[in-house]
């Protein structure tokens, strides 16, 4: 349906846009940038920071460009004296209530308020400093997220993120006037509320009010300690994003450079979470097939549909919001935690290092992984399986601190063992990837043939639709799987917790008939994770996703069960998928949590 066109003038330049376009977007079209703070492409319009006010001829008041639709014949001025004066005031006001100790801030250099202050060059503050020393104490209760109210500019991007994208609403506005702030249920610390640690709020916070809990110094300390053997693992989505914080455009694949940088940073072994992603497919795939067998053959009551368990933000969401569906979660640990448990047992034995001397560091696109590694269940090696989790952003900072010129690095390969992977593991980084990888393996296990999709690309589960569904008919099974003959395997994929919630509600209501559901806590999956480079937008997430699928296509092996190290570990150590040892090391359980 074509929309009506509207003609207007911005700074005396005629422009024609579709009806309903905001002044902000119309100005963008003719290359006038209007500054914004509360506006974000992933969120609904708030119009509360007022940095984007512009003058509309004939109007009594200035208009918020982000919230005002264009109208026919409108004449807009984005930089008139009136606008500039008001805009300067607004920024000065924000600075007057902002803890502007920029040099000590984790977001220094990545702060939108700092950028604006930079553009306008205020010199001495005109207004009184409203930040009280006692307010500068940050909430450090969460292992994932640091909330520092003294840096908050009340744009409410975090509140909208938590509500609109994630359906969690751990963060909300409380009080009014000078006591207004962003807080939690009953003002409780972040680790005591419904927060899933997904970090999406961090990705959208324009300042340093919400940041990841950073463990950079702890990791350096471990690296410098001669008695420690420091092993690093890298998640699939990091390799298509870390370059964004090191001067490259979104969508660059930098796997080899990242490995090279990690070696130069001084890690003793550079290994890959992709290895345990492949292992997850085997464990989770067999778990699904076992559940189906128990239902179809043994007629046992088994929780179906089964849901993936790779995303710790999603896991905590489920524990809080849908505790009655915990049996439906796959018991598989996430690839990060499978890696940790194997590193300090199987791998430590192989390389003859004592587990107590080993430090496992993860590079993750995720802040919830920081919480996950602290869970008491994640100590099956007898030690804390994963010691430190760094976000993609923290890794970029370490690389810069070490003075490594990232774009000039030669590509290097992961160490072996626990470094080999397939294309199926790489696509874990994008929404639909776990499902696709699982189907590539499960279908072949059951039928002895490859999945019936061109070039193994299972397109129906790819893409940015919030909820995706697919049905695969299982035909001509191998004899041992004949109970699946003719079965329509119904699968669904959701990313972002608000989409997850929709799917869960449908499951609870019994309006859907899925067997297997992939859920990722973050929009776009891990490539849009809460630990990924800022900014984020649909466009950026799509570029990272394209890079992920290119990486997959370029791999010699693209099915998890063909990963030679995976084959080897079953032969050598684990026995069989879902076997006894697997259950000791690679599987876990979940616990219900309170609703707020």
């Amino acid at each position: 349906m074509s929309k009506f066109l509207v003609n207007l003038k911005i700074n005396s330049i005629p422009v024609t846009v579709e009806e309903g376009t905001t002044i902000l977007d119309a100005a963008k079209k003719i290359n006038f940038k209007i500054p914004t703070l509360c506006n974000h492409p992933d969120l609904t319009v708030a119009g509360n920071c007022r940095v984007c006010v512009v003058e509309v001829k004939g109007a009594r008041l200035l208009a918020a460009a982000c919230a005002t639709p264009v109208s026919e014949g409108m004449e807009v001025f984005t930089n008139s004296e009136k606008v500039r004066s008001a805009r300067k005031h607004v920024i000065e006001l924000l600075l007057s209530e902002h803890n502007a100790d920029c040099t000590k801030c984790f977001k220094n250099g990545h702060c939108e308020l700092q950028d604006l202050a930079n553009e306008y060059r205020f010199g001495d503050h005109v207004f009184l400093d409203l930040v009280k020393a006692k307010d500068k104490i940050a909430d450090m209760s969460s292992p994932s997220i640091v909330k520092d109210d003294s840096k908050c500019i009340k744009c409410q991007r975090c509140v909208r993120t938590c509500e609109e994208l994630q359906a969690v609403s751990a963060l909300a506005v409380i009080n009014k006037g000078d006591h207004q702030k962003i807080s939690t249920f009953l003002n409780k610390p972040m680790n005591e509320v419904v927060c899933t640690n997904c970090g999406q709020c961090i990705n959208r916070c324009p300042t340093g009010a919400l940041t990841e809990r950073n463990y950079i110094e702890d990791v350096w300390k471990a690296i410098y300690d001669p008695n420690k053997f420091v092993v690093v693992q890298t998640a699939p989505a990091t390799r298509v994003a870390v370059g964004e914080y090191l001067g490259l455009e979104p969508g660059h694949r930098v796997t080899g450079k990242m490995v090279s940088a990690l070696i130069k940073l001084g890690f003793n072994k550079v290994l890959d979470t992709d290895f345990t992603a492949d292992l997850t497919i085997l464990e989770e795939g067999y778990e699904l097939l076992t559940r189906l067998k128990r239902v179809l053959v043994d007629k046992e009551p088994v929780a179906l549909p089964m849901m993936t368990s790779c995303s710790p933000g999603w896991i905590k969401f489920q524990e809080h919001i849908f505790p009655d569906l915990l049996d439906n979660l796959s018991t598989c640990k996430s690839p990060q935690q499978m890696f940790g448990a194997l590193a300090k047992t199987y791998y430590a034995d192989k390389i003859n290092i004592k587990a107590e001397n080993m430090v496992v560091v993860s590079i993750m696109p995720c802040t919830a992984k920081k919480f996950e590694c602290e869970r008491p269940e994640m100590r099956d090696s007898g030690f804390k399986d994963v010691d430190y989790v760094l976000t993609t952003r923290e890794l970029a900072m370490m690389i810069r601190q070490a003075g490594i010129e990232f774009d000039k690095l030669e590509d290097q390969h992961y160490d072996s063992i626990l470094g080999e992977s397939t294309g199926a593991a790489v696509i874990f980084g994008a929404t639909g990837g776990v499902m696709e990888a699982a189907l590539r393996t499960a279908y072949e296990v059951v039928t002895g043939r490859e999945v019936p999709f061109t070039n193994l690309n299972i397109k129906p589960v790819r893409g940015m639709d919030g909820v995706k569904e697919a049905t695969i008919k299982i035909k001509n099974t191998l004899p041992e799987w004949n109970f699946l003959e003719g079965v329509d395997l119904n699968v669904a994929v959701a990313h972002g917790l608000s989409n997850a919630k929709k799917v869960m509600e449908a499951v609870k209501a019994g309006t859907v008939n899925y067997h297997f559901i992939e859920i990722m806590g973050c929009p776009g999956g891990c490539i849009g994770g809460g630990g990924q480079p800022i900014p984020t937008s649909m466009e950026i997430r799509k570029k990272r996703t394209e890079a992920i699928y290119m990486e997959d296509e370029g791999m010699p092996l693209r099915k998890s069960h063909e990963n030679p190290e995976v084959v080897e570990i079953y032969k050598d150590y684990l026995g069989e998928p879902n076997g006894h040892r697997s259950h000791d090391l690679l599987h876990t359980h979940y616990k219900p949590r309170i609703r707020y």
Partner: protein
Amino acid sequence: MKKVDIIFEIDEKNTPFTILEKTLTRSPDAIILDLIDSGLKGRGGAGFPTGLKWKFTKNEVSNTKYVICNADEGEPGTFKDREILDRVPEKIFVGIAICGYVIGAKEGYIYLRAEYNFLLKNLLPKLDNFNAFLKKLGFDFNIYMKSGSGAYVCGEESALFESMEGKRGEPRNKPPYPTVAGYNHKPTVINNVETLVYVSMICGMGPQKFKSYGTTDSRGSKVFSVSGDTPIPGIYELELGMPLNEFVNEFGDGDAKAIQVGGASGFCVPRKKFNDTIIGFEGIPTGGSMMIFNSTRSMYNVLHDYLEFFNEESCGQCTPCRVGCQQLLKGIEAVKKGEKPPSYLEELKRLAVTMKLAAKCGLGQSVGNPFSSIIDNFREEIIY
């Protein structure tokens, strides 16, 4: 200055019930024409022509529309709606029902400020009785009561809708306006208590009688809440367009040095300007609050009180209002203490202009009214 008796008048032959019965036999368009002809403007303070507001909402195509009576009377110094709600609630109900009939709504709401919940004891039985009367008339319309939670900003219409929807009371972006997307994002007429009473009275007595009061720009009369340094505080219905000196002569204590017209968010008029200030839309419009200050009062304290009020009642959503209120308050304190030079007041006045131009809603936009009018007229009291 003429005292008028329309709002509280009890006419045994022309009761609100008979007015409603009679009005429901007329066409909606005829009623709108009468309202436009009467020149009635909203009595909450903003002064939007009531007939036009109804016409816009009537013209919207929607299966669901709402009428809302804004009884969140929170402006400091205003207490006339409380009296109206207590003494002549049926006149309000009739105004709401007529509006429902005109725009095609099935539900009306009275959003009552939390502090007025004590009125419910009297109001609710009368409302039940009225809803039963509507049923008897065969008019498919019902009026409900909703209670606020104590925030001043919820008197702002879009914040009021948010509050009614069970959300935090924060003003919305405009457009869209309530006539297009109000409560539950459906076309909504929202009128002040007093406006709705005038609607029912105009429907009863005809627009000509109403028009015979007031001036060209300010038709009719208005209920004033008179307080401060006056021997006779209270509620008075007065003709619009009166010069302020006449008001002071009637209500002052002989020593008035300033009148705050329109409550905390209104304007301060000093004695020297009493003679050439008109109370009405052509001069200083008001939601009804008239606060009289005599020479014993410190205007610094008056302004300080107002700013403390705004500082507390800003919803905190938009920057100019949230931070601006704090800066204005702390700014005059700093000037008073000598921590900032008197010239800092000029800086603050420029800030007040920004707040007026850039704040998201009427609350933040009007803080500059008392600020600048008090600073301009009583500068020495602020500094020394």
